[in-house]
């Protein structure tokens, strides 16, 4: 919203006298956004530290289910799973190197 007759109108407020239907809807929209933002802030601040940590991890792209899966394994199993993944990564790298060197056919 902008000024009215040279008078600046603060965001989220609508002068009462010349209020139109559109103004009411727009004003209500701003009020709703402000309300939702405040509620979201209260929700985040009011979170248990653990929940906030899990949320931070989720937002960082960490797969929490994968952590649960790992924690359910013995340490030896975690190592075997890790080393299997590492061997697979190395195989993919070898495949890429062979591909780049023209040793493998491509689909193109």
């Amino acid at each position: 919203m902008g000024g009215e007759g040279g008078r600046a109108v603060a965001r989220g407020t609508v002068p009462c006298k010349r209020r139109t239907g559109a103004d009411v809807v727009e004003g209500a929209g701003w009020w709703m956004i402000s309300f939702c933002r405040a509620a979201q802030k209260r929700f985040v601040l009011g979170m248990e530290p653990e929940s906030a940590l899990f949320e931070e991890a989720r937002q960082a792209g960490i797969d929490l289910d994968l952590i649960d899966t790992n924690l359910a394994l013995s340490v030896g199993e975690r190592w075997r799973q890790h080393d299997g993944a590492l061997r697979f990564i190395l195989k993919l790298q070898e495949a890429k190197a062979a591909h780049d060197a023209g040793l493998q056919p491509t689909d193109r």
Partner: protein
Amino acid sequence: MTPDFSQLIAKLTDSGFEFVMIGGYAAVTHGSSQVTRDLEIYAVLTDENVELLRLALAEWNPRHRMTPQRLSFLKFPKPGERVDNLYLETYVGVVDILTAVLGLGDFARLKSAAEKFEIDGRVCWVISLEDLILAKEAVGRGKDKLTAVELRVIAAKRKR
């Protein structure tokens, strides 16, 4: 090179070489889902320890991976020569031996807080989860910060 870190850790523990596992493999041991390519361990590199390490790694052609000539660890450092850190590659994987970890104090303190894990029948000392989080946060690189978040989640889940 065919990585076999289980074999590497078994050989190191059997040799009597005193160390604490740190870094990515320690994170994996604690339950992290990250994939790492090198085994990082913390140790005091006395002459005696360097000799134990040489004997333990001898069959896997250990070489200094940071030197252009890939000098053999079996020949360098020479006896009595001081060494701070060792960055080695072997037939079974890369192993880095560090004598200092940012923000964690000396080896004795780190080991006193370390946790014992059994890995394929061998008992191995692994940096505590709390110290590992501190170390990752102290390094402060993007991937380390991400690992620190993951480790903090693991710590929270372990407390339940």
